[in-house]
């Protein structure tokens, strides 16, 4: 194909640039109409790839981004990515259409909404089409960010901001883990390309980082797809506008994790950890979500938990699909079902969940509340919405004649097969899978009925609803009706759907087993014959589900047993509180604001590091031979110096301390004389005089300082640290003196001071000629110090004000 169709991924982003302009300039037309064009065009365009993927071929388009690092944007379209792309653009178009009627063009900030939505669309297309792990990660984070913006769309509400932050923290955490996993994978497989990683999967399996990479990738997938225990952000993300919930939190973004698992199945399926984790966590999520969905009273919360649960179902099927890499012979066909069932249910779920969210939005929009306790008896008022909700719920519960029935049958079939898998302890623990799946299905049945019948049937509640309910406008109904129609259609033509969409996708997830979509050869039929175990289980689900639904009022108290503080949300909250309060306390503990404390830290660490490395490296050597002989002058000066230093320490008044400090300075000058450094001695004498004078001046002029004629207070800690620093410096100096690695450079100066530099005073020639650069900046330092003192004293703001007043 000549066209670089990878650029089409960026079409929504490009369109987003024009949204604010259209919103500002064309106020009379709802901006959504312009936006609608984008997903529709893309949907039609991606449909044209159907033929390619049905023939088992792939289409690749690539533009380099950072060629020197081997990073490029790739659009790799095989069955799996095409299926997702179609879902994203198709449901995207319906959601945009729905939002046109849902969001008021005068009251809402539509420019923000559609920019975020288009940004999200690009990100999602990028995830599913990227063949390059780094750009996949890029798009992955872009979905997190745009989802954050969309959840916080009504940013004046507290709950919106809370939900946005929660989803951001959790998904970004997963995203970063995913990045780690990708980096490990690309190190192990020596490539960034997912296709080549799959080709190298045998080598990757042998690598020592394999398990780490596996867990990191799964963390990314689980957080994004709201698996246990990371599902907690999804119910709080329901504060988003309903079109967003329908699009992001049912049909697309939460399936990004599923996509990731499906895509990387060929890389990781060889491992038992992968199968156990994906299947186990998936089933646990399925059960957990369905159990807690019944507890919710908010329509969207029910749907959120149901999404969590259904995502767990698909996840567990993907895990079971990986089993087929290990099984040969008669059972193998059974596990190939699992991957098929996963993809099939993924399509189903996107359809019915999208429509259900839209219905929930309609109910909210037309009645003013989403609280199921206040709703009831809406069937006669909103018949179309009820029909759609009914179809969606029944499909969700897995009843014929809706698409959900078929996927539920396939699901149960795969779960029943799991105990027959002999490797990895499945024979002993495997029975737990079908049982858990069955119980979860019962609860799914219960909440599906709960959702639709508590809302639409029964008596009208005596309390008046905030808005007088009436059927929604036609435009708002188009999208859910279309989706519901698809749900019904799927039931009647499952094999057509299978051939067109599911089989090519299955080939992508099980690339070792199939090379061509036609080889998958799974026929879905609504009727498996009498007394098949799946049918019996479905009958059981219906029977027990009905009983549970009718007696709901009696056993709903069960949920009150779990105390509020003992939940995952409470754990999240306390983690955040711990993060804020605990870290605050920690930093307040060591950041005392006292310079004394910080100096103690610094000195202790310098002493510890230096002394430890001195002895660990065995670098402490004292070579007595290199010492010069001690002379009497030196000894005497040293004694004077020590006495003066002690006087500084024990002086009662500051004046005495300053004078003693002067004595120290002059004895140092004396040392320079003794050790034949006339320049230094001269400078030291003068500078000491000037600085003592400055000290006295400063001392005299410091106003308001309490003059306490006491000795410095003795503190043991200070003493120890001071002593340690002294000892450390002595040790370092001794051992540095004893080990001269290379001879001194000074011979060169001696030889060339006259010939090259026309001077006799080596010190001065070094200062102004050999190394005049240093001097240049030293005088700059001096100048800065002078200006600094001047400005600190002369240019104080308060003084200026005072002088102004005096004038």
């Amino acid at each position: 194909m000549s066209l670089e169709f990878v650029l089409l991924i960026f079409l929504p982003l490009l369109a987003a640039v024009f949204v604010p302009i259209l919103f500002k300039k064309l106020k009379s037309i709802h901006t959504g109409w312009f936006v609608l064009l984008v997903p529709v065009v893309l949907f039609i365009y991606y449909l044209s790839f159907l033929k390619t993927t049905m023939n088992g071929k792939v289409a690749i388009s690539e533009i380099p981004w950072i060629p020197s690092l081997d990073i490029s944007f790739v659009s790799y379209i095989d069955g799996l990515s095409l299926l997702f792309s179609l879902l994203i653009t198709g449901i995207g178009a319906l959601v945009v259409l729905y939002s046109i009627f849902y969001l008021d063009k005068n009251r809402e900030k539509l420019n923000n909404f559609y920019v975020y939505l288009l940004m999200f669309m690009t990100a999602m297309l990028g995830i599913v089409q990227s063949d390059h792990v780094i750009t996949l990660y890029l798009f992955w984070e872009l979905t997190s960010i745009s989802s954050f913006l969309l959840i916080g769309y009504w940013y004046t509400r507290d709950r919106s901001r809370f939900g946005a932050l929660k989803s951001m923290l959790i998904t970004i955490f997963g995203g970063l883990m995913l990045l780690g996993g990708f980096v490990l994978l690309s190190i192990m497989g020596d490539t960034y390309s997912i296709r080549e990683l799959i080709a190298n999967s045998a080598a990757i399996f042998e690598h020592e980082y394999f398990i780490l990479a596996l867990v990191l990738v799964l963390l990314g997938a689980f957080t994004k797809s709201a698996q246990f225990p990371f599902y907690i952000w999804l119910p709080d993300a329901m504060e988003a506008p309903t079109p967003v919930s329908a699009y992001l939190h049912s049909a697309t973004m939460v399936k990004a994790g599923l996509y990731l698992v499906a895509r990387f199945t060929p890389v990781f399926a060889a491992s038992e950890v992968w199968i156990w984790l994906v299947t186990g966590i998936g089933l646990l999520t399925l059960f957990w979500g369905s159990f807690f969905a019944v507890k919710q009273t908010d329509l969207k919360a029910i749907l959120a938990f149901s999404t969590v649960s259904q995502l767990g179902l698909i996840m567990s099927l993907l895990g079971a699909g990986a089993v087929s890499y290990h099984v040969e012979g008669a059972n193998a066909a059974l596990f190939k079902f699992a991957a098929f069932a996963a993809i099939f249910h993924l399509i189903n779920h996107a359809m019915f969940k999208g429509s259900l969210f839209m219905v929930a939005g309609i109910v909210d929009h037309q009645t003013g509340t989403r609280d199921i306790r206040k709703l009831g008896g809406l069937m006669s008022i909103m018949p179309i919405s009820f029909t759609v909700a009914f179809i969606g719920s029944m499909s969700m519960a897995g009843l014929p004649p809706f698409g959900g029935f078929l996927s539920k049958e396939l699901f149960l079939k795969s779960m029943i097969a799991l105990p027959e898998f002999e490797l990895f302890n499945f024979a002993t623990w495997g029975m737990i899978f079908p049982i858990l799946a069955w119980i979860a299905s019962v609860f799914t049945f219960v909440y599906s009925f709960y959702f639709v019948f508590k809302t639409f049937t029964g008596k009208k509640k005596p309390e008046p609803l905030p808005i007088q309910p009436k059927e929604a406008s036609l435009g708002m109904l188009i999208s859910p009706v279309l989706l519901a129609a698809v749900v019904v259609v799927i039931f009647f033509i499952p094999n057509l759907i299978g051939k067109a969409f599911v089989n090519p996708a299955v080939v992508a997830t099980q690339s070792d087993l199939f090379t061509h979509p036609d080889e998958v050869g799974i026929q879905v039929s609504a009727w498996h014959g009498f007394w098949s175990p799946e049918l019996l289980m479905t009958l059981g689900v219906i029977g027990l589900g009905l009983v549970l639904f009718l007696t709901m009022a009696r056993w709903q108290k069960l949920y009150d047993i779990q105390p509020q503080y003992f939940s995952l949300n409470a754990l999240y909250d306390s983690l955040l509180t711990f993060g804020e309060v605990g870290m605050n306390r920690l930093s307040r503990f060591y950041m005392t604001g006292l310079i004394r404390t910080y100096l103690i830290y610094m000195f202790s660490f310098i002493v510890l590091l230096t002394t430890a490395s001195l002895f660990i490296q065995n670098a402490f050597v004292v070579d007595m031979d290199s010492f010069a002989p001690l002379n009497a002058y030196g000894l005497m000066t040293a004694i004077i110096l020590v006495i003066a230093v002690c006087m500084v320490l024990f002086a009662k008044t500051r004046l005495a301390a300053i004078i003693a400090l002067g004595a120290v300075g002059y004895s140092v000058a004396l040392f320079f004389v003794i050790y034949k450094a006339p320049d230094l001695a001269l400078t030291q004498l003068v500078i000491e005089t000037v600085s003592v004078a400055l000290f006295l001046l400063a001392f005299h002029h410091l106003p308001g300082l309490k003059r306490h004629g006491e000795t410095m207070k003795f503190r043991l800690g200070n003493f120890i640290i001071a002593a340690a620093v002294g000892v450390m410096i002595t040790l370092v100096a001794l051992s540095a003196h004893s080990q001269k690695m290379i001879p001194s450079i000074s011979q060169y100066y001696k030889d060339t001071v006259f010939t090259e530099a026309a001077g006799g005073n080596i010190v001065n020639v070094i200062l102004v000629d050999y190394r005049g650069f240093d001097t240049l900046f030293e005088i700059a330092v001096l100048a800065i110090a002078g200006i600094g003192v001047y400005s600190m004293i002369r240019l104080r703001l308060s003084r200026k004000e005072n002088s102004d007043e005096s004038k």
Partner: protein
Amino acid sequence: MKANDVILQTATKVVAFIIFLFSVHIFFAGHFAPGGGFVGGLLTTAAIVLLLLAFDLKTVQKALPFDFMIVVAIGLLLALGTAAGSILFDVPFFTHAFDDFALPLFGVSSLHTAMIFDAGVYLVVVGSTITMIQAIGGDS
């Protein structure tokens, strides 16, 4: 200060000049004997400080009507100019040049661009120390 400082002031008038001359000597001798711009500058400062001690701030400011901040600036410019001047002659930054010149009053003398650099050092030292002392002293 009400006390009679005649002895101090009279002595200062003599001694300050001696110190100043000594500082000039130290400065010029720097290249061959101990000394140089830094010590020279400090000694000049010492002379001025002595003046400050014997007289008061205003008198000294009247006697030495410089803005010492400008002295600092001139010193820095001199030092940087010497260092940068070498670029004009297509040699690396900070290359000094020296030669013997026949001067009208001094006869044949060796002149060295390092001396100009040292003069910069001298001026910066004098300027900044006096700026500090004046700033602190003038505060009260």
